[in-house]
């Protein structure tokens, strides 16, 4: 009788796995992937798909932030449905009419910074990492004496949607937290895009700074904050070289 261990041919180079996160030395059933390695892959893909497709629970996120004494306001892009959002990045970069009307009601007194949080391509990333990161960010901004309005939460937003919000508030710094396209090994990766003096429709992606790969096995919150503060200070220096 065939034993269960005979059914899968292992690879004797398992020890090489310590050099790479790649899926090496998987072994085989016949010439194909074994049930175990196949299901491991399916698990990773399921996590990534859910990160893209499950809606971000914005009210839970708002509660998390309010508990930190951070006020929030809810905005949305022109992509009304998720499938639309995925196929029309141009609509994800523009505020919906309702959100534009909402902003128009508010005075646009000069602020220094605006913080925008968008679901992007991983709701898991934002649900998990946005509030803990903002908890570190707020004291750092306060220590610099920066003024900022309520944190803007944006449904179905792409990076460039922050430009219109920053311009409305006349904020020099736009700090955008957004869910990154999930990989199999990182379904919950958050990115931070930092844009200085954003101009809607004019600013290009090349003019932004990106701090990428913020998740449990990637960049930590404090590492990300150090990079962000460096960018903030550097932008101020470049902006006022003569007086500094």
């Amino acid at each position: 009788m065939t034993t269960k261990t005979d059914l899968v041919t292992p690879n004797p180079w398992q020890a090489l796995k310590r050099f790479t996160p790649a899926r090496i030395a998987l072994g085989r059933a016949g010439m194909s992937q074994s049930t175990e390695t196949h299901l491991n892959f399916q698990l990773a893909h399921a996590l990534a798909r859910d990160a893209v497709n499950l809606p971000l629970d914005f009210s839970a996120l708002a509660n998390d932030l309010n508990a930190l004494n951070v006020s929030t306001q809810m905005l949305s892009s022109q992509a009304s449905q998720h499938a639309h959002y995925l196929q029309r990045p141009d609509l994800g970069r523009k505020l919906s009419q309702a959100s534009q009307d909402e902003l128009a009601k508010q005075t646009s007194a000069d602020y220094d910074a605006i913080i925008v949080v968008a679901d992007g391509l991983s709701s898991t990333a934002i649900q998990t990492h946005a509030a803990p990161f903002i908890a570190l960010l707020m004291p750092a901004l306060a220590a610099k004496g920066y003024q900022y309005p309520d944190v803007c939460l944006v449904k179905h937003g792409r990076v460039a949607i922050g430009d219109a919000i920053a311009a409305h508030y006349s904020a020099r710094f736009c700090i955008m937290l957004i869910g990154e396209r999930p990989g199999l090994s990182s379904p919950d990766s958050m990115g931070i895009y930092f844009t200085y003096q954003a101009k809607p429709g004019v600013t290009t992606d090349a003019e932004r700074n990106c701090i990428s790969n913020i998740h449990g096995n990637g960049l930590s919150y404090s590492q990300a904050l150090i990079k962000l503060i460096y960018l903030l200070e550097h932008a101020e220096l470049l902006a006022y070289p003569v007086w500094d």
Partner: protein
Amino acid sequence: MYKAHIAHIAYQFNDLRTVMAKATPARSGDYLAGIAAESHLERVAAQQVLADVPLKRFLTEALIPYESDEVTRLIIDQHDANAFKPISHLTVGDFRNWLLSEQANSEQLAALAPGLTPEMVAATAKLMRIQDLILVAKKCRVVTRFRNTLGLANRMATRLQPNHPTDDLAGVAASILDGLLYGSGDAVIGINPATDNLQATSRLLIMLAELIERYQIPTQACVLAHVTTTLNAIERNIPVDLVFQSIAGTEHANTSFGINLALLNEAYQAALSLNRGNIGQNCMYFETGQGSALSANAHHGVDQQTIEARAYAVARHFNPLLVNTVVGFIGPEYLYDGKQIIRAGLEDHFCGKLLGLPMGCDICYTNHAEADQDDMDMLLSQFALAGGTFIMGVPGADDVMLNYQSTSFHDALYLRQLLDLRPAPEFEQWLIQHGIFDHNNRLNSGSDIPSIFQPGLQKLMSQHNDN
């Protein structure tokens, strides 16, 4: 003006470019560009109009003006009127019929290739079903050589893609060894560097050259850095087998990639001068993919499938060893789901083969596309039936640097079993010689590591990660 009356509706299309766009089977990128058919009926009307367009028309009505685009100039200036003659009297619809007929055999198709333009083959693809795309492409034979022979009948090659998130040499080596022991790597051992600079690229190139030399592997190496990085490496006497570049089908899109035809020619001449191929001098490796021109805002109102075919005119000017359509990498705003990805991969292969190119396909998807492993198996199987030249080999199908899913070493073995597709002959001999494959195109049943690799494995195991 192009007109059709269909189901009591009169359709008018202003120009050939519009007919082409409206006739294209539905895909998200053409909707994003605002040029797709607005109904099924409009699409079929455009297809009927397109079927009646004489092939000659494509030589006089440029979709992107000759004066303003060097890719158009290349297409028109390089067109071989003699090769075109046997079919010059046909319409697009006639040409589809001719391709499906027994008259169109491998020899005829090879002789015809220089007489075809990308627009002619793209137009024909729009009138074809999946089975037509498979049947005709299968008849095309394109053979290229560097250190082995690619594109022979009943063979299919693999690019071993051992990427690592930080270009760690031990990590890359671990994936290469894994791939070789699964029989992967005859098309090329090709690394996408995480960091595109001269130092990182040179380190990887030197490592690959040493590996191929030490184990006498009948294959070629490539680091998929920007062409200017590779040119710098060549100037510093770093060993370069294949020069890589991503290319697109319009001058503006190529400008956004930081290239033009003159730069590609400079790189081609530099690679030729190294004379590193021992049985042939096809020394370029190009990658393409539908949607890249739109993403660079350089599509000129032309549909993404036609622009993709125009990129093949750029490729064939430099006699490449390999051309790879990276079909599902760009994301759902260009190809939304498995259905769109599958069709695009087969269209690209069909167009590339008719134009005389050694077409491979990175059968792949991202996690925000509506696609999964089942969709990849559909394209994988159909691509092999169509006689695809090569596919990717990525450990477990999971590229941990580029964060997308491609095909695994196991996927290639599935096709080898199912369709008895063998690797390139020189590489197959090497696999048999070292006990990796048996004589029946299967992995050897033993689980021992071949003796040739044991010292290298020991050395690797004694190392620490270098990052």
